[in-house]
């Protein structure tokens, strides 16, 4: 308004900035709390199937979703808990879905990899790369039925080697589809180091298709938010796709119980417990932890890279980074409040499902 009459708007007042920071922090904390609850239920054996956690991605999810409206659509990958939580889907219904209960979000028919919510226009999917075409379809209908709205695709850098995702970058460009592609680059293609598998890099590939691209440190939620805003504003106003490349870490491995993580954390103990080809090759490692980890180097780059990631895990934790900006007092208030909320969600879910953890 001020701009339209030639007066430069004043810089954002700290109060508003603080309030935005706190909201962003609250979003990351809520995601982490639901992820933790989900992981707990998995470890307790109450969630029977695979769980791919989104711990480490909270800053990317919260930073992007901060700029979406209720009419925008989102296609998630196989780590959808964070997006569904941050979109406002009732965590109790998510937990019940993962428990396989009839009152779950999808009546227990979808499970953790297939959360679907028609009223929120949110889907998730267990096929790597399929979020690309899915977001294109949402964006196609948005153009005619919901002008001004956009679609977002969340996927990893491993998906950048999937044909359908590459095809959808092209399709979005030639059909002028308002899609924001968000590549959450955690460095791993399932349990193989992506550096060994990905020629070039995600952002350069997208640029070659004519997409506006930006790179950001995904463990810094405020930077993600600022970069995502620029891209989303453009996608929304120009009806043109863009790609955000955000690096992050994956402290829990590909899925819960990832044998690599278990072996890394407890080389001798775990190799006695788990099956597969891993145990025999590391069982010789004994004595000090250093020696045990040293023995793992026989497995090649995988565990070495994993070790590097695990050692620097805290530096890459989006919550710790944002917490420092929010301030301890405000952070504690948010953490207590959100934890209490999610604890209630968990106890509600367990009560409805008639199980205990």
């Amino acid at each position: 308004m001020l701009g339209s009459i030639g007066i430069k708007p004043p810089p954002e007042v700290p109060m508003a900035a603080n309030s935005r920071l706190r909201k962003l922090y609250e979003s990351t904390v809520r995601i982490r709390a639901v992820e933790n609850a989900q992981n707990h239920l998995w470890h307790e054996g109450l969630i029977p199937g695979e769980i791919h956690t989104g711990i480490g991605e909270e800053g990317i999810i919260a930073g992007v979703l901060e700029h979406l409206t209720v009419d925008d659509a989102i296609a998630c990958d196989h780590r959808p808990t964070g997006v569904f939580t941050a979109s406002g889907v009732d965590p109790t219904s998510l937990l019940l879905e993962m428990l396989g209960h009839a009152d779950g979000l999808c009546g227990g028919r979808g499970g953790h990899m297939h959360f679907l919510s028609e009223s929120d226009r949110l889907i998730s999917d267990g096929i790597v790369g399929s979020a690309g075409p899915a977001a294109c379809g949402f964006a196609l209908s948005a153009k005619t039925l919901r002008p001004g709205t956009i679609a977002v695709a969340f996927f990893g850098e491993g998906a950048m080697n999937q044909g359908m995702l590459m095809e959808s970058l092209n399709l979005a460009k030639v059909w002028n589809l308002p899609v924001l592609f968000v590549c959450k680059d955690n460095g791993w293609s399932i349990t193989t180091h992506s550096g060994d598998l990905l020629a070039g890099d995600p952002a350069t590939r997208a640029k070659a298709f004519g997409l506006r691209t930006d790179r950001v440190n995904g463990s810094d939620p405020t930077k993600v938010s600022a970069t995502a805003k620029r891209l989303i504003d453009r996608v929304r106003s120009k009806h043109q796709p863009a790609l955000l490349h955000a690096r992050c870490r994956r402290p829990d491995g590909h899925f819960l119980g990832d044998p690599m993580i278990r072996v890394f954390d407890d080389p001798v103990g775990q190799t006695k417990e788990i099956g597969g080809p891993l145990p025999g090759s590391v069982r010789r490692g004994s004595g000090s932890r250093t020696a045990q980890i040293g023995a793992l180097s026989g497995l090649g780059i995988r565990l070495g890279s994993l070790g590097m990631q695990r050692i620097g895990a805290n530096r890459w934790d989006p919550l710790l980074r944002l917490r420092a900006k929010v301030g301890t007092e405000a952070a504690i208030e948010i953490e207590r409040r959100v934890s209490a909320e999610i604890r209630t969600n968990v106890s509600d879910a367990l009560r409805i499902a008639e199980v205990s953890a």
Partner: protein
Amino acid sequence: MNSQMGYAQAIERAIDSAMTADPRVLTFGEDVRLLRRNLLVGHGADRVMDAPISESAFLGAAVTAAMSGLRPIVEIMLVDFIAVAFDGILNHAAKNTAFSGGTWDVPLVVRASCGGGYADGGQHEQVLWGLLGGIPGIDVVVPSTPADAAGLMTSAIASKRPVVFLEHKLLSDYWLDYLGGNSRPTVEFDVPVEGANGPVDDPIQPVPIGSAVVRRRGSEVTLISLGVGVHRCSEAAESLAGQGVEATVVDLRSVSPLDTETVIRESANTSRVVVVDEDYLRGGLSGEIAALLAEADVPVSFSRVAVEHTIPYARHLEHDALPNVERILAAVHELR
């Protein structure tokens, strides 16, 4: 009131009517602005869109477009090409309603040409309806006449479920001209006249998905088929009648859902069944019908005429590979 028209024209008529009635209906695929020029002229470029040769992307996009308010008719030029977009159909179109607990519809039509008999080789002449029809969550229809083509397309567009609509290239003159060079007077294809042209009601009468029709009734043997096979069966039945053997011809029209009631009834009536299927012999529709009859305790002598190997290119080899009248007659005579 009805008028005479070609099979492809009948499909176009159905789509045109649907696009006129409902602005959410649109069509996209490779070359559609050329192939569906009439629709382009009538409904504009936003609703008739050329797609890149990226079946994975645009079929996948069609699924979520359908889930978010549009009624897409996505064209996979030849059903053989579904192989590169199979994820969209198998893991998304067919699954999302079930995953959502039955609440989120996928009103999608996947339109593809299918079938052989014009020397295009084994990567361009498959039908794959057995493969597709075995997937829970999608319907598969295969019309054999212009009236059914229009009626089934009308029902497919109106359906809340994903429907694969397969049009046989020998019946569809658009495709035969486009792919087979049918305009050459020097080449002849064995086009079944009654399938390629016929009366279509105005307005179009929708054909319910999952309903078979009896094309001819006889008491001694039941020939069950679909697509061009129906016409081969009718020709065989004519020949059998000359030999004093009266045959029933069942046109399945839908592979999924299968009209089990008609199949069981018409099989029980004669106790002698030949399934004539242009799809592969193993793991498909013909075996499914055998299982259906066995499960329903229908005692029949049973035989099938289907495609047993990769369809060869050479005309005479292609003729032998596809269900033909000679093979059908031989199968009937070999029945107990």
